């Protein structure tokens, strides 16, 4: 079946049935995942899924429906449901659909080699990865290793004459291990996720990192409740930055549910913090030629030296704010109307190596695992559970577990006083190690 023609035909069908504006979004996805444990296959999962979402606007009222059954009767019934549902919702002149505009060319979204690589090779990689991660004698158990891949084709058509499609894909490797010592169990996990198979991190690296993360946390000691510096490793600094990103969501801002609602062009964070959102980075995990409703993606600066420069919008929120869509309409699956989210986030690197940051810390906590809500997007306050290492006199002393860290928006975001030079360009959220001068740490 020609999906491009199908989506265009279904847009006409929506109009024929009474919609004033209509959008049809079709997603066709294929998944494969292999899990191995204790040197044997544990699970092989394989699937295709395909479905269509209908967004209709009837007299400025919005209705949405979806189905994954492509029989004519079901498609017709689903369209009718969307139109019926539109009658329930409130008229809103901001319910608009984008025009065709152009394409942004984005390189490296699909690796045609992935499907050509044999199942045996993929399974053997997962087996080898587990074996390597178990090599260290401190590692006692495996919680499994795995290989996964996915490719997705998207087709969008709307009644403004927009008709676009693209194909993307990716693959990943992951492993989890356990270090069991007396009554203690410590787990470590690492992964690599890439657009291209050849770009996957080496098995040795992934294995080594997972094993290290498990054994290095053995024999933790407790510390007193106190105020001290907190260093967020790159893996967890993304949680802090993620809270800022959530607060820059244009719709959240319009609703007053963001702590940055009144902060445009105001300084809310340290000079060291600049944040860009880039949907066009070649091979980027969150790159795409256009967003979830067909608007071309861009590269934009959201925060510059601690000052809010831009919010991000989809078509609806942009219209409400009296501006243009920034190409940030998100679409999880075909089952929901467009939301709002960023693409590849980057916080440009600072001047110090992570080692230098530790050495410059008289007393503090190096966090390598963060749980809980993190930065609250409504209030800006930070609160979470933390694990990591205790630092005194610029040196790591011992692992620590079961701690809490907290601070107000002011204290945490303006208190960022050192930024690392370590950026892992293969993530969708690229943030370096960073240090907050002082936070409240809860211990015994």
């Amino acid at each position, binding site marked *: 079946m020609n999906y491009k023609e199908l989506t265009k035909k279904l847009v006409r069908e929506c109009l024929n049935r009474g919609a004033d504006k209509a959008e049809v979004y079709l997603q066709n996805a*294929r998944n494969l995942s292999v899990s191995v444990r204790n040197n044997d296959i544990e699970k092989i999962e394989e699937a295709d899924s395909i479905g269509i979402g209908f967004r209709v606007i009837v007299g400025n009222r919005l209705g949405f429906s979806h189905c994954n059954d492509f029989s004519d009767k079901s498609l017709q019934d689903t369209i009718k449901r969307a139109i019926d*549902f539109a009658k329930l919702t409130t008229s809103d002149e901001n319910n608009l659909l984008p025009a065709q505009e152009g394409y942004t060319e984005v390189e490296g979204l699909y690796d045609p080699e992935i499907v050509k690589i044999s199942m045996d090779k993929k399974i053997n990689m997962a087996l080898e990865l587990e074996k390597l991660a178990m090599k260290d004698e401190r590692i006692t158990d495996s919680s499994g290793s795995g290989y996964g891949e996915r490719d997705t084709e998207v087709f969008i058509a709307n009644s403004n004459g927009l008709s676009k499609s693209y194909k993307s894909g990716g693959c990943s490797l992951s492993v989890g291990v356990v270090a069991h010592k007396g009554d203690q169990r410590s787990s470590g996990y690492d992964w690599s996720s890439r657009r291209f198979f050849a770009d996957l991190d080496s098995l040795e690296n992934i294995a080594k990192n997972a094993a290290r993360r498990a054994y290095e946390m053995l024999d933790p000691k407790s510390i007193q409740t106190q105020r001290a510096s907190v260093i967020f490793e790159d893996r967890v600094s993304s949680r802090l930055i993620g809270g800022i990103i959530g607060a820059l969501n244009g719709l959240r801002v319009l609703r007053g549910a963001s702590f940055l609602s009144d902060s445009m062009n105001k300084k809310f964070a340290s000079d060291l913090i600049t944040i860009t959102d880039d949907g066009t980075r070649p091979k980027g995990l969150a790159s795409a030629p256009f967003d979830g409703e067909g608007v071309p993606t861009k590269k934009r600066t959201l925060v510059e030296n601690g000052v809010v420069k831009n919010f991000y919008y989809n078509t609806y929120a942009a219209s409400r704010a009296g501006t243009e869509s920034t190409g940030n309409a998100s679409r999880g699956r075909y089952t929901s109307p467009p939301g709002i989210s960023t693409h590849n986030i980057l916080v440009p690197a600072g001047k110090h190596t992570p080692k230098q940051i530790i050495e410059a810390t008289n007393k503090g906590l190096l966090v390598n695992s963060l749980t809980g809500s993190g930065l609250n997007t409504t209030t800006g306050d930070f609160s979470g559970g933390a694990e990591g290492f205790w630092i005194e006199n610029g040196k790591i002393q011992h692992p620590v577990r079961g701690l809490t860290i907290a601070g107000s928006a002011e204290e945490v975001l303006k208190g960022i006083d050192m930024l690392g030079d370590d950026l892992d360009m293969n993530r969708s959220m690229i943030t370096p190690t960073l240090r907050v001068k002082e936070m*409240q740490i809860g211990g015994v």
Partner: protein
Amino acid sequence: MSNKKLSKRNISRRKFLDLSMKGGLLVAATPTLLSGLVSFKEGTKPMPGIATDKSTLSKVIAKALERGGDFADVYVENRISREISMEESIFTSGVYGIRQGAGVRVICGDKTGFAYSDDISEKSLMRAAEVASYVARNGSDKITPIDLATAERKSYVTVKQPLDEIADEKRTELMKRADQAALDYDSKIRMTEINYYDQVRSRVIANSEGLYLSDELPLIMFIVNTLGDDGNRRHMGRQRESYHSGFEMFDKVSPEAMAKKAARESVDMLDAGDSPAGTMDVVMENGWGGVLVHEAVGHPLEADNIAKGIGAFTGKLGKKVAAECFTMVDDGTIPNYRGTINYDDEGTPARKNVLIENGVLKGYMTDVLSAKQLDMKRTGNGRRESYRHIPIPRMTNTFIQKGTDKPDDIVASTEKGLYVQSLGGGSVNPITGQFNFTCRESYIIENGKKTKPVRGATLVGSCMDIVSNIDAVGDDLDFGVGFCGKAGQTAEVTVGQPTVRIRGINVGGSRA
């Protein structure tokens, strides 16, 4: 646990991938079951149609076991859902969804093969069975199709007003009422976000043990969020109610009462100060607070990590793991509750399972695979988010059994600590047992009295410590509803507890 060397697999990679690639392209040309399923909802015949009859499913199971294996099952599902959103007093979207498909699974030793299809034709099911069958390598004698027989199961879900007979305006009416009640509560309520969701999930389950089952489960969820804003601070308050029920759920659940509760939280918390930090005694109010033991104790008692020998409670069966006053139960049979399931998604009847009794570990929650691996009975906890996911051990309605202490006495006998009135979300690492929680609404306890509100408190600790340190259990058992995420799958659950006190939890706040 299997430690044997990997045998030479002769999966033809082209064939494997070809099989998987074809699925999507054929979907469009196949007939639909929808009309049959819709008529099922109207109370005629369960799941008619070519691919859910016993003889077809029997063939699919035989195909799945063609290369060997110990167990195979087919799960066919149709889900019709409605979701209406109201934000800032306007109806922003209405989403109507139809999702259907089938998953075929093969278990061979410790291995699982799984494939699913969005299409429920015989051809697609046979293809899924073939893909799933590749995991089995132990060969087999010629499999003859087994006879499927409809099994008897009790139902714990009653419906008086079927959801598909309710006009959509009745749904939006409830939302308007909640919105108005919240805005009327206080001028500091800046806006509301109200979400109505319902679904009817029809399922057919058949397996190589000859089991055949079909039923449908309605589910409603109603969520009220209110934003309090005094020009200086903001706080989002929340109330959620959910039952496996027809529309008569709203005879018991009042949108106005929910809105007032959420609005009260929003307004009261605007005056909250910073939370203290450090280890202290915590009194947890009855109801949704049960999510703490759901995470901290429930997840580590799910048998998958126990079977792997890596779960925090591995090897502790029959041993004392908690305080004497602590009894915890998972019960999938409480009439119409959100976590109630009649039978799990593998067909095992729902049960009341005592997990920890007076501090002694009595049992784990199993699915077919982990029960086999541990040589234990199936407990009715094999649940799956949809046909796109494999069953894994999950909780249903999980709660701390009520005790004898009076809630007021528990607070009065706590000299200094934190009173947690409402929790947000949390998580646990089931291997290390380390958990964390965010408090939505909490108060300082001083000299046995609940005093000023504090915001942003986080609770952390280890599951072993928490169950040992519970020293008071109230007589006021109540429940709350939520979503539980595990291994990329979401399950609808209820949690519950009476008011309890836990000695010495690490509380995170920004105040020294």
